[in-house]
């Protein structure tokens, strides 16, 4: 018997895709006015659940009840009508349209003659923005807004849609401490307005702070669901992972050598300035900062994708000029982008070809592909990384996500790099696999490579890095020795304090 009414009830929900059962008999109960944390590793089924609630997917089995009445969420429009609205991690925005249009997209206010009522829409848009106490204007074009501001526009959209159930997917990933506090205020505000919120985050501290209750998903099933007051962080972790995680950061001790790479006063207009740091042999140097702080831009420039306006780079004490990626690769510097699929894998080429893609010149004779060398390289890295593939001509796009990632890594390792730049290597990866990646990084430095790791996860930085450069809005605020600093100190530099 529940004293507080159930806003949303999912019972026995199942959903499969070819080869995988994404959700298996899931029960999910959202109380009225509550902030309900949805926790789980990646692949646990959270995003499938969200898509079902948004009407993008339909469950094969199970019932959905809203306000105790059964409903069928056949498509996004129906879902909207029932008051379900989602705020995605990557804001769903239309850059060339104004804030007001983005708020009302798909939901325009129309006059009796079926024409759009621009006046009413502007009025309501102004109201909603004012209610959120933001200084964004209805007439601003979204393309000029920051990520935090886009999140606010998304929230405005939910308010304008009179949504009762607001799903927030990793809303604080890109926000500074100050902006996060403001978001919490908005959430409390929404609760007062009778909204119920599903809050998805992998930051367990956040869940513990802001949520009233929680549900933990693992491998498509519900592992536990309760009030937040009845649990602890460790319990949450062990529920998520299904085992005790003792050693999350298995970094072997390596002897750090001399400096091998120096960046001096890198500057790129509006992107970053005064970027100076060095990297030592066998070191793992972290680059920590919020999303949008410029870390990726800096690394992309070092790798030769973009040019910087001024500054120097030194490799082994030699002044080097990196004008394009090939220059960096030839020096032994490689970059693994955080957008693993988009920027790493060539789907319609075979696994063998993918593994050899950065080694084309070396594995050839006068431009003609040397099949034997290709095979040797491919075999070596398939074994080393344990890539599951049945035959060489298998297309890379047919591999599982994890194996695809290994293929991308294999491609780079084949070039025998000296410096590896990893951009958010464990983003979106479950805790179990994170550990495997970290262990792997440890092996790499052991074999003599040096790593620059961009990460937005403090525990990862503290556990894996020797030093960390803290970046805020395009500047390196401080370079700290990890063993001599604390999470709080790093966090405060990263937030601009």
């Amino acid at each position, binding site marked *: 018997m529940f004293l507080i009414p159930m806003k949303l009830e999912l019972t026995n929900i199942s959903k499969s895709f070819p080869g995988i059962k994404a959700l298996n008999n899931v029960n999910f109960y959202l109380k009225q006015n509550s902030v309900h944390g949805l926790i789980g590793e990646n692949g646990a089924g959270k995003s499938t659940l969200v898509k079902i609630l948004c009407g993008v997917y339909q469950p094969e089995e199970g019932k959905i009840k809203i306000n105790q009445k059964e409903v069928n969420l056949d498509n996004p429009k129906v879902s909207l009508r029932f008051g379900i609205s989602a705020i995605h991690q990557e804001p769903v925005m239309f850059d060339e349209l104004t804030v007001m249009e983005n708020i009302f997209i798909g939901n325009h206010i129309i006059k009796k003659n079926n024409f759009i009522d621009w006046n009413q829409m502007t009025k309501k848009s102004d109201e909603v923005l004012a209610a959120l106490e933001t200084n964004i204007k209805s007439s601003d074009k979204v393309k000029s807004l920051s990520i935090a501001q886009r999140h606010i526009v998304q929230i405005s959209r939910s308010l304008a849609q009179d949504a009762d159930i607001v799903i927030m997917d990793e809303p604080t990933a890109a926000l500074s401490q100050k902006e996060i506090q403001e978001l919490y205020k908005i959430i409390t505000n929404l609760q007062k307005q009778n909204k119920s919120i599903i809050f998805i985050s992998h930051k367990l501290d956040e869940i513990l702070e802001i949520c009233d209750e929680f549900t933990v998903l693992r491998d498509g099933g519900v592992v536990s669901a309760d009030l937040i007051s009845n649990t602890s962080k460790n319990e949450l972790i062990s529920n998520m992972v299904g085992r005790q995680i003792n050693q999350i950061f298995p970094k072997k001790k390596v002897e750090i050598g001399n400096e091998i790479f120096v960046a001096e006063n890198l500057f790129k207009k509006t992107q970053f300035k005064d970027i100076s740091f060095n990297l030592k042999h066998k070191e793992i140097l972290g680059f920590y900062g919020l999303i949008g702080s410029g870390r990726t831009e800096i690394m992309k420039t070092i790798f030769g994708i973009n040019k910087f306006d001024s500054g120097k780079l030194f490799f082994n004490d030699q002044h080097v000029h990196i004008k394009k990626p090939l220059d960096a690769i030839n020096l032994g510097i490689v970059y693994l982008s955080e957008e693993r699929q988009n920027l*790493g894998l060539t789907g319609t080429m075979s696994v063998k070809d993918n593994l050899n893609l950065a080694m084309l010149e070396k594995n050839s004779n006068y431009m003609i592909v040397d099949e034997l060398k290709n095979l040797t390289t491919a075999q070596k890295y398939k074994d080393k990384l344990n890539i599951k593939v049945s035959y060489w001509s298998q297309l890379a796009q047919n591999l599982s996500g994890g194996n695809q990632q290994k293929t991308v890594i294999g491609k780079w390792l084949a070039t025998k790099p000296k410096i590896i730049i990893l951009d958010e290597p464990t983003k979106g990866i479950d805790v179990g696999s994170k550990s495997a990646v970290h262990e792997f990084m440890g092996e790499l430095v052991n074999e003599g490579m040096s790593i620059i790791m961009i990460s937005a996860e403090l525990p990862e930085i503290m556990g894996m890095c020797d030093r960390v450069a803290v970046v805020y809005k395009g500047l390196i605020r401080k370079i700290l020795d990890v063993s001599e600093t604390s999470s709080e100190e790093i966090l405060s530099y990263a937030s601009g304090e």
Partner: protein
Amino acid sequence: MNNKILLNPPKNILNIFYKKEFILFLVLILLIIFNSQISPYFLDLYNLIDSTFLFSEKAIIALSMTFVIIARQIDLSVASIIAVSSCVLGYTTSIGLPTFYVISLTLFSGGVCGAFNGFIITRYAIPSIIVTIGTMSLFRGLAYSFLEDQYYNKFPDIVVKLGSDYLFGYIPYSFLTFIILTLCFAFVLHKTIIGKRIFAIGNNPDAAKYTGIDVDKYTFVLFTMNGIFSALASIFLSGRLSSVRPNIAFGWELQIITMVVFGGVYIYGGSGSILGVFISIIILGMLSFGLGLLNVPGVGIIIFTGLLLIISIGLPSVIKYFRNQNE
């Protein structure tokens, strides 16, 4: 762990049936049988050989266009480049330049046009479809403004010979060139690192860039090459027609693209084979030839080509639909 894995999936005869090239080959056989039943003139060797004249010039461009399309680009200006280079051919002949310069300048003009395409596409990052729609007009327009309503009909002897004569009396030079180029292109695409890079660029240009491939350079070179091969084709064509007007090769871009796409090259890039394009060219050539023997007007052939193009790409969707219905 050191288990060697097979290079290819286990030899299953049934796998062959799914390969595009095999299906095309079947279509070719069927077509030959069909055509020979329909007309007694079809299987005549001399007729068949002569029929190659009609498609060899387009075929040469189709080979180069295959690279362009695999690299996820498209070039609608090829026919207009033919117009420009034939003008150059005619003009340089008319002012009495030696043959060597005539031919070099013709090829050079094609290269310049192609390089112009490549420059605008890479420098301003504008989709090739819209750039080549523009240059399609610009180039042919230049030919029109240059020639107005005149025409050239004098070309160096070697050009006429190349365009309309036979090696050893049997093999047309244009067809021979096409065969030789087919082998060259096939080799480059499937056996060299250049080919691998083109496939990589076509499938995922960003990933290719991050892997150190100079996407802009390759794009520029591919368009320049397309221009040069268009100019080469215009040499054969002018030699065959012996008369060059500014509307030469009008509408050829559609036919050339059809040859490529019908051969199994994916229009959005990343996959395809020269073998497929080769068989496709033969099929389309025989189709035109056969229809011609049946006295179907040229226009009918064009309509048929358009339909064929749409059907060949649309068919997989229809099949997928029915397959889904059955599940």
